[in-house]
């Protein structure tokens, strides 16, 4: 019998390699792959996908009890929280400036500066700073964050269609990376990348966040959009070749399955087990669709998802 020839993909494109950190801060490289997720036989994956842990600038009051107890006192201050996140194995710290949201404290540039500074001094991991997703507030706090972290190549998001000029300018002036976020749609994602590059941002200083749907809450849309973006990138379409970030914890922990400890059907099973696997399975599924960074909340998810990435990085 003739030997069985496995069909290989001859991709012509490659995902951009983006460096976060530097200038005294630990560096990490994201992206760079020339094949679909974990398919080592078609191309190379120079950098394994990474796990970021989310830290908020104020103690979160709406987290379910066991997520709170997994962190304990550390949640009180972003700097202690970030340090603990390092112990729990974070590759990157994502600092969410949630208190800047008009309904959650409406804090401004000076508070943002302080929180970012504290986290920067507490840990030497690469940092991504996310605003409250209200455009004017994002502009205010992200510009402040960019200045404090000047030269340390942090990620800044959300950079969206409405405020991309401000964020891009701030990234260029201070040497940072834009986290370009768009509502689950391939052309809008591509369009924002084009806009960012047109005003001068280098393609390898952009990470895209095509919007995450949690398991049971639109994950199939996210999967398909990520797969299509990645297929386009490998097919040589440079404006979709940015590495991708998935804000998993943020989406998962607002859903009933993760939040509710009682008043749910018995078929949902044990709350602790269910909520953690909800985060883990959302993360591993999106890693399989092309995520290069997943942002998580529960320390156990971090451990398990990192372990799964390790296993998938083995060439077989």
């Amino acid at each position, binding site marked *: 019998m003739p030997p069985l020839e496995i069909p290989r993909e001859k991709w012509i494109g490659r995902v951009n390699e983006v460096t976060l950190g530097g200038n005294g801060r630990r560096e990490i490289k994201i992206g760079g792959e020339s094949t679909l997720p974990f398919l080592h036989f078609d191309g190379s994956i120079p950098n394994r996908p990474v796990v970021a842990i989310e830290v908020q600038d104020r103690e979160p009051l709406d987290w379910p009890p066991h997520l709170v107890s997994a962190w304990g006192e550390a949640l009180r201050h972003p700097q202690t929280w970030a340090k603990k996140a390092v112990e729990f194995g974070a590759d990157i710290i994502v600092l969410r400036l949630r208190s800047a949201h008009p309904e959650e404290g409406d804090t401004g540039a000076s508070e943002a500066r302080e929180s970012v500074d504290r986290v920067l001094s507490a840990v030497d991991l690469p940092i991504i700073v996310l605003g409250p997703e209200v455009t004017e507030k994002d502009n205010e706090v992200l510009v402040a964050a960019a200045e404090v972290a000047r030269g340390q190549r942090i990620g800044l998001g959300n950079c969206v269609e409405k405020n991309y000029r401000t964020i891009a300018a701030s990234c260029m002036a201070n040497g940072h990376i834009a986290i370009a976020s768009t509502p689950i749609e391939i052309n809008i994602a591509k369009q924002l990348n084009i806009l960012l590059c047109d005003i001068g941002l280098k393609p390898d200083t952009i990470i895209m966040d095509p919007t995450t749907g949690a398991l049971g809450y639109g994950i199939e849309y996210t999967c398909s959009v990520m797969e299509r973006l990645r297929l386009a990138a490998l097919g040589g379409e440079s404006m979709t070749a940015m590495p991708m970030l998935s804000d998993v914890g943020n989406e998962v922990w607002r859903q009933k*399955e993760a939040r509710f400890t009682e008043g749910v059907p018995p078929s949902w099973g044990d709350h602790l087990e269910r909520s953690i696997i909800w985060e883990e399975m959302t993360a591993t599924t999106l890693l399989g669709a092309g995520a290069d960074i997943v942002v998580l909340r529960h320390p156990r998810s971090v451990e398990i998802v990192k372990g799964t990435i390790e296993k998938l990085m083995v060439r077989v």
Partner: protein
Amino acid sequence: MALTGIEIYKNYLPKTNCRECGFPTCLAFAIKLAQREVDPSLCPYLSEEARQALEAQARPPIRLITIGSERPIEVGGEVVMFRHEKTFYHQPGIMVRIRDTEPPETVLGIIDQVANYSVERVGLELGLDGFAIENTSGDSTTFIRCIELARSKTDMPLVIMSNNPTAMNKALEVASQGRPLIYAATRDNLDDMVGLSLNYHCPLAVYGPGGLEGLSELVERATGAGVEDIVLDPGARGFAESLTTLTQLRRLALKRNLLGYPIITFPGEGSETIEEEALLAGQQVARYAGIIVLDHFSPALVYPLLTLRLNIYTDPQRPIQMTPGLYTIGSPRQDSPLCVTTNFSLTYFSIAGELESSGFPSWLLVCDTEGLSVLTSWAAGKFDAEKIVKMLKEFSVSSSISHRSLIIPGHVAVLRGELEEELPDWRIMVGPREAVDIGGYLKRNWRGDLS
């Protein structure tokens, strides 16, 4: 290998555009054939050679296999690598393994739990699909007893697992009417297992670890002897092995027309904890398994797995939809809150569930957004001020309520200004982004007297 519409048109159709197939031109028909949406027999003028070629083309590159008889499942029949290219058609069967070394009470306990497990999502009841009964004891009497016990409790499909043809023969004597999957033909027992598969008309799993060439050789021997319904076990157990091998098998089937059969996996054998088993099973739902045999049953792990399967196997062109209209949640009065949303069923069910538990009977206006969610439909221009105004009119919302307050989803807060212009006597309220926050939002913001 899959033919394109043009290839079909050029090489196989009469090019007379006689319209008897129901299509205006041969080319139009060819394109439908390429998409496997029509039967080639609709054209009465095909040559014998064309008929054969087109029938082969019409068959999915991965054979559709039926397992079970009372409540059969169909697996395989897939035609794409990625769901956006068309859709994934037949969701993998998820089964639970029972070892015949377990005491009968335990076996009955597991069967009871699994068979009765059911969880509701977006108005659908999700559940597991059957059992794999393994001759772990090596003793055929124990094996038969276990199978009979299972058959007495459930008519769900079975996989019968033994490498011993004698034990398998005895098992099939009692269980073959249920059309179980025979697991498995191996290098050592292939001829005997093939014989059993043919005798009892049951599908046959072929186990060929250590490379697809070995597997392919075994499969060829089985098909050569006349077995048609085959399930593959390439023996790839861990995360990386499974992803690589199952991807390669899907490609071989789609691009080379080789080894086009559904695949059975055992995630419990490739993982160290049950949590990991569930994650690996999740990977296999997304990447190409036809039957997944779990070693553990735990509702907290099975619920996310069934949810993932539902999500991944939802047709991207046909999301599960609600009929547009004005829905009542509880028994709303004229002064009860009015919310507006899209007709994506998940959105609807999330909001309806939250409104129900909020203590506010409500009106829910469901707009036709072709089944897209709030954000996606907004991005696609299918959920905008104009659409909302149109739906308000179409379903005469004003006549059902006494107030003029409309709560829009937080994700489309941008629509507020435009709505205020289009609906000058209305108050437009921006609700929360997530359904789960609706109860709290109404408590804080809904005052009947203000509206």
